[in-house]
Structures are given as structure tokens and as C-alpha cells.
């Protein structure tokens, strides 16, 4: 299975000059359209007048970098958020949704990326398939197991789903949970199916099965809005690609989709110009990983990072990217193998020891892993940056706020953080500025190895460019290792890209060759083989 490419190459490699085609008139009726949708969260304007139409029997790919507004648009369509302005038209009627269940009742079904919410743990497959009827207010008071199973079989037959009906939902793999969610959407005769990053945790064969189901639904006249980072997925399934940036639709591409141009529209400039050519570095090795097995049974791998180098690791959800970072930071242990830092063996007992030795980690999801709620002392920009450095900055214990405010003021100027000053709390900042503060925290002290886990989550492209400049511009001679599930992010930030698959690292590309080949090599490596 390895090296077996499941997608045709995205497109001829000629870097076209941003040939933005006009939106082709959809052949069949428009199932759903949104016009002039606006939505703000505090200081952040997530959607600034988005327009989008999906026709029946069409798969539209919604593309956009982190923070472009894709998820906000999805949440508005699925009824989780109400828009500040704009209209949603479904089957010719203007509608507003008060809640997710209202959207569902109107015929919009959403399959979210987090598949653990696709059903209820503790219930069987059959009960989950029939869940909508069990939960509907007008449903029957008494239900027998037999009637549930009968109904579940009918629903499963709609998409040829072949799962044991007695299995508990918690024992299902993500792909199986996703199919249950899709089956429920079909059973509810949805007119629009939204798939949010559906392949992020699937293997190649599972993804193929998903595509087959989606194609069949499309052919039966369902409108599908497909959100994905993976260009290979879009090439395989999308009839049309719509690109978002800064809360607006900035481009639409018909088949065959010109991916380099779509990516350029996504990040606001040609990706070629934004990428970095990996030079064969002769700088001293900072980090060496030898014979590492992340989990028992996984293939061992080696890795070397040189001073000043920025390396990105991509891979699907759960492939082991975060685990490697956590092991380096002392939060997880290797099943086998050794780390070396600046030529000396490195085995951290935990964050405290790592930080003392200049190994810093920015974990995924900043509100969960890095930031403090606003009512706590030290939740300001200054306090947030200072938190890991308190011991070194204030050895006597007495806080001198002047010092931390000075560091914060420098960071605000250097990274272009939009804030009134060092005393602003983090909830007053936009996502990109919050992430800049988190990066500033770890650039406030001499660093040897900087580990970044999904550093561009919920960050708009402008702030992403600032963050990349700050990551690459650091002159301290440290090495940087970045885990990201997004290929373009990896191409933009890194000198070279490695792929994590089945808890083992595979060299994907070294920064040479045309861009679309690089994308293809990375995504081909990500989905080669089958987990298990």
C-alpha cells in the first residue's frame, strides 16, 4: 500500500498567474446560499460579508487558512451561532436558525471534525442510528429494541453502512463514527450536508470509502459543503472550490481546480514566494533523536535538527506528532530510543527541567494549555509572558512588574501585537494576537529547542505571516520543531517537512522541486499505508 497514490496530482505544475475563474453558474437549483454574512467576536471580525451558494448535487470545497472564517461560517449554517448581519436562503426561502436543532430540522446536517460528538457513548450503533427519532419530542413513548434495530437497519442501508448494530459507540473508530453521523444526516433527508475536516483522522482506504459515500449522495441530489485542509482530498471530491480569507470569499475555482492559485488566494500571496528553500545546513546539531519508538511496536526513526533550522512535522490526527513533542518536553516517555541536546543525552523529567535547559514547548489549544482567565492576577500580556520565567527573573521572590512590563512592551512592538499595552488581558485580543503573546512568552528567554504544536490554530493569515517571521527571525541559534496538520502551513514556515504516520517519522521532502510536487509528496506520505 505504501507509496500508492490515491489522488491524481492536484494540477499541472505550471505556476499560473492567479487565474481566478469566474464562478460557473451551477447547473441545478441552488440548495443553500448565504449572502453578506457578518459576525464579530469581541474585537475580532470573523466574517466580513461572506457570500456562498451550493447547488443540489454539487460538492463545494470550502478552503481557507486557519482563522479565515470557515468554522464560523459552518457554525452559522449549522445554527450554533447567529450572524450579526446577512441572510441564509435554503431551498428558496430566507431562514434564520435559533439553534442547532432548528438548522437540522430545516435540512442542514453537519458532521463535525470531533467525531466523539457524532453519537452518544454508552448507546449501541443501532440506538445511535435511530437517535434522532428517540429524541424527537413527538416520538413514541415506548420503544422496543426490535423497532430500534429495524429502523437502524433502514438507516444504515441508506449509505450501505455495514456495522454490527450491537457495538457500543465508544468502541468505534473515528471513520465509523463519521459514517454514523452521515447516515443520520441522510435519514433526516438533509438538503445540505456539511463535512468539517472529515479526513483528518482517516486512513487512505477509509477516506476512499468516505468519498464513495459522498459521491453517491451528490449523485442523488444532495448539496455537500466540504471543508478540508488537504488539497489531495479536494482534488478527489470537489466539483468547485471556494476560498475564504479574512472573513470573505476571495476566490472560486471550477474543475480542474488550480490548486497553487487557490492556495495563493488562501494566504493572500503566491505560496512559492512564501516558502523557504531548505539549504544543506552545516550548523551544529542541536537535537538528535536516535532509534526512537514513540509507542511499542511502531517503527523506530532518527531525526537531526541543526541550529537555526525550522522543521515541520505533518500528519493526520493521532499520528503521533504531539506525542513526539511531549516526549521531548518531558511529558511523555519513549518506548525506546534516545534524545540528544547539543551533543549531550537529553531526558527530561518534566516541564520544569525542560525550561531550565532551554527546551520550550507551546502546546496545542492556547486557552487550554497556556493562558489564564482574565480575573486571575498575571493574566495580562505582561504576566502571561512572564509566567515560566518568574523564577529566573525574580529569584528573591518579590515581583517587580516594571521588568515584566518592559519585556511585554518590547514583544508588543517586535511582533506587532495589537493591544493598548502590557496590562491588557488576553481575552481582549484576537486569536492571532493571543498566539503572538504565547510565542513571545517563549522568546523572552534564551532557547535551544522550541517545540510548537499547531501554532497557527485560529490565527488569521496576516498574524500567521507575522508569527512565521518571528519564528524564522529568531537569531538565537535554536532549533524549531513544529507539528501541524496543515500542509500549506508547513510549507510556509519550514525549511523541510517530515511526515508522522503510525507513530513513525518519514522524510517527506527537503524543500526542493516545484511546489505542487512538494505538496503531493507530503500528502502522499501522510496517507500512504493503513493504520493498524
Amino acid at each position, binding site marked *: 500500500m505504501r507509496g500508492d497514490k490515491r489522488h491524481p496530482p492536484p494540477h499541472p505544475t505550471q505556476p499560473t498567474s492567479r487565474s481566478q475563474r469566474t464562478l460557473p453558474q451551477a447547473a441545478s437549483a441552488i440548495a443553500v446560499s448565504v449572502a453578506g454574512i457578518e459576525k464579530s467576536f469581541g474585537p475580532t471580525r470573523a466574517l466580513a460579508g461572506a457570500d456562498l451558494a451550493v447547488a443540489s448535487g454539487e460538492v463545494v470545497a470550502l478552503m481557507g487558512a486557519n482563522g479565515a472564517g470557515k468554522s464560523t461560517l459552518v457554525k452559522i449554517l449549522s445554527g450554533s451561532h447567529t450572524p450579526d448581519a446577512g441572510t441564509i436562503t435554503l431551498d428558496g426561502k430566507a431562514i434564520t436558525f435559533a439553534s442547532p436543532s432548528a438548522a437540522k430540522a430545516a435540512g442542514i446536517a453537519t458532521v463535525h471534525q470531533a467525531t466523539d460528538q457524532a453519537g452518544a457513548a454508552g448507546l449501541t450503533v443501532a440506538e445511535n442510528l435511530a437517535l434522532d427519532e428517540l429524541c424527537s419530542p413527538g416520538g413514541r413513548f415506548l420503544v422496543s429494541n426490535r423497532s430500534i434495530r429495524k429502523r437502524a437497519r433502514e438507516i444504515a442501508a441508506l449509505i450501505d453502512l455495514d456495522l454490527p448494530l450491537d457495538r457500543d459507540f465508544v468502541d468505534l473508530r473515528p471513520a465509523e463514527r463519521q459514517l454514523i453521523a452521515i447516515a443520520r444526516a441522510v435519514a433526516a433527508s438533509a438538503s445540505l450536508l456539511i463535512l468539517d475536516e472529515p479526513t483528518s483522522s482517516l486512513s487512505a482506504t477509509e477516506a476512499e470509502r468516505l468519498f464513495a459515500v459522498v459521491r453517491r449522495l451528490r449523485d442523488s441530489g444532495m448539496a455537500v459543503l466540504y471543508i478540508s485542509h488537504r488539497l489531495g482530498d479536494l482534488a478527489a471530491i470537489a466539483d468547485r472550490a471556494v476560498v475564504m480569507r479574512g472573513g470573505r470569499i476571495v476566490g472560486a475555482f471550477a474543475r480542474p481546480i488550480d490548486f497553487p492559485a487557490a492556495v495563493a488566494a488562501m494566504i493572500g500571496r503566491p505560496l512559492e514566494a512564501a516558502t523557504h528553500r531548505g539549504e544543506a545546513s552545516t550548523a551544529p546539531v542541536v537535537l538528535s533523536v536516535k532509534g526512537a519508538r514513540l509507542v511499542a511496536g511502531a517503527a523506530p526513526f532518527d531525526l537531526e535538527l541543526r541550529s537555526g533550522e525550522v522543521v515541520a512535522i505533518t500528519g493526520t490526527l493521532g499520528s503521533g506528532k504531539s506525542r513526539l513533542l511531549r516526549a521531548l518536553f518531558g511529558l511523555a516517555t519513549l518506548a525506546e530510543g534516545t534524545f540528544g541536546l547539543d551533543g549531550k543525552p537529553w531526558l527530561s523529567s518534566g516541564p520544569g527541567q525542560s525550561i531550565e535547559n532551554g527546551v520550550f*514547548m507551546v502546546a496545542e489549544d492556547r486557552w487550554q494549555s497556556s493562558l489564564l482567565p482574565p480575573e486571575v492576577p498575571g493574566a495580562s500580556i505582561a504576566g502571561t509572558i512572564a*509566567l515560566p520565567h518568574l523564577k529566573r527573573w525574580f529569584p528573591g521572590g518579590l515581583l517587580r512588574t516594571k521588568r515584566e512590563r518592559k519585556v511585554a512592551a518590547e514583544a508588543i512592538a517586535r511582533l506587532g501585537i495589537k493591544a493598548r499595552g502590557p496590562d491588557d488581558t488576553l481575552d481582549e485580543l484576537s486569536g492571532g494576537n493571543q498566539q503572538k503573546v504565547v510565542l513571545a512568552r517563549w522568546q523572552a528567554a534564551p532557547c535551544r529547542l522550541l517545540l510548537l504544536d499547531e501554532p497557527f490554530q485560529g490565527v488569521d493569515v496576516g498574524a500567521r505571516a507575522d508569527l512565521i517571521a518571528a519564528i524564522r527571525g529568531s537569531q538565537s541559534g535554536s532549533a524549531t520543531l513544529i507539528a501541524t496538520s496543515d500542509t500549506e502551513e508547513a510549507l510556509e514556515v519550514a525549511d523541510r517537512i517530515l511526515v508522522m504516520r503510525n507513530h513513525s517519522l518519514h522524510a517527506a521532502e527537503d524543500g526542493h522541486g516545484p511546489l505542487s510536487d512538494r505538496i503531493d509528496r507530503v500528502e502522499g506520505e501522510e496517507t500512504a499505508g493503513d493504520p493498524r
Partner: protein
Amino acid sequence: MTELTTTQAAPRPSLLREIRRYALFALLALMVIGFWYVQPAFIRSANLFSILQAVSVVAILGVGVSITMAADGFDLSVGSVAASSVMAASYAMVVWQMDAAETMALVLLMGALIGLANGLLIVRVGVPDLLATLATMFLLTGLQLIPTGGRSITAGMVLPDGSTVPGTFDPAFLILGRSRLLDLVPLSVVAMALVALVAWFLMERTRWGRVFYAIGGNETAAHLSGAPTKAYRLSAYVISGTLASLGGLIVASRVGRGDVSAGNSLLLDAVAASLIGYAVLDKRRPHVIGTVVGAIFVGVLLNGLTMLNAPYYTQDFVKGVVLVGALAATFGLGKKR
């Protein structure tokens, strides 16, 4: 250039915020003036200091509770630690004939050890904080009755085995609860002021306090920033236990006997003071100054009402009203800043 427009946040509605910051102080001043107007004896320094003396133990216990709350914990055992300290101090002097210094050292050590046990139960064993300290509370409430067979400890009492106790309270021990500095300020009030000052300095002006609050705000973030979060949480309970036993020592030296019902309302009063403290300076978090002000607030109210001949049994109701009002004001009004 980012295309997401970041609007400058509007200047805070500062008047409303200032009002909320000082609301409790204003109410306190209003109360003092009102009680003074109705009952001129209220403002006499002897009465004011007796109010402070009455709240000193609650304030000291409350400071301990608020430190555990800052680290996202909760210590329900402070009342029973104080009550056991009363009994332990009395037993040490009356039965074991220890002197004042030995007794104080023993009792404070006992408080610290109980705090350590609480902390280990929570941090190491993983029992949720409320349950662990509730269990400790039951344990201590029962344990303190066993050595004396459920009777209060006084000089000359008869022990369960029929012997008469040999010792008495050391007169030096009684100084803590009964004498005044410069013939004016009760020593227990001085102790409260010292505890409050040191704890305030620790929590607001040092990096250790910052880490306590960081753990309470987001333990993962504190841990990933290299803080030894378990050690901090453990030490919060040790501090709380030690302060509770100090409170017990003050009670014992004021009462001069080991009264089995000494610590009855201390827990709820201390917790209430900490929670009322959330509203002080509109901090919306546990803090030392707020806890002390909260304790004084309740003390002034109860003292004034007593002077106005309000019956004793209405006291808990009044405390409840104050607590509900303060919490509603903290969390309800202007939730979005």
C-alpha cells in the same frame, strides 16, 4: 497586514466599575454611620476593637481558605482543625502540663500536619478537595471528643479513667487571647493584622502568589510553564491548616478552657468571609484583603444588630443575606466587562 479588523476596545465604563470596586467599603461606612446614629455607644473604640477581636479568628481561618481557593482547592476542615486545636491546647496544658510555648508549637505543628494530610489525600491520592477535607472534618470532629470522653477540658476535671487532671492553663498562654497591646488593641487583632499582611504580601507581591493564582486559573498552563503544581497545592493546605490551628489557639486562650463546641460556626463564617471577599475591589477571585474586609463586614453588621436588640438567632440569616448579595453582585452584575 491582517485583514481581520481589530477594533480598539472602548474605554471601560469606569464609573460603574469604580462603584463596584468600592461598593462594599461604602456599605461598611454607611453601616458604621447608621449604627453610630442610632446607638452612639457603637463608635466607642472599645466596641470597635471588640468587633475586630470577635472577627479575628474567622478572618485568620478565612485567609487560609482563600489561599486554598486561589489554587483552585477548598478546605472544609478549617473549622474542625481550629476546634481540635482548642482541645489539643487544653489537653496539652491541663493533662500533659506543657507550658505556653510548647503548647503553641505542638498545636501549630498539628495544624500543619493535618494540612499536609489533606494535601496528600488530594494531590497524591487524587480525592477531590471538597470530599477529602469533608472527610478530615468528620474525622477531627469525632477525634477531639475521644480523649476526654466528650467532655470539655478544665483544670481539675475528671478523665474517663477516673483520675483527676494534674495541670492548669499556663497564665502566659492566656495572654494571646486576653491582653491588649498598649492597653487598647487586643493581641488577637494584632495577630490577625500580621497574618493578613504576610499573606497579602505573599499572594499579591511575590512570584509564589502569582503561581498559586496561575494554578487556580489554569493548572495545565501553570504546569507547562514549569511550576511544580503539586507542591504548590500541597503547601496551600499546609498553610491553611497552620492558620486554622492558630485560630484555635486564639479561641483557647480567650475562653481559657477546652470547650467541645468552640469551633461550631467557624467553618461557615470563614468560607463566607472568603466568598464575600470576591466582591471587595471587584476582584472576582479569592484574595486576602477581601477576606479580611468580608469578615469585618459581617462582624460590624452583627455587632450593630445586637446593639439594636436583634435576637441572637437571626445572625445566621443575616450572614446568609450578605453572602447571597455579595455573590450576586460579584458574578451577576456586569458579567461582561
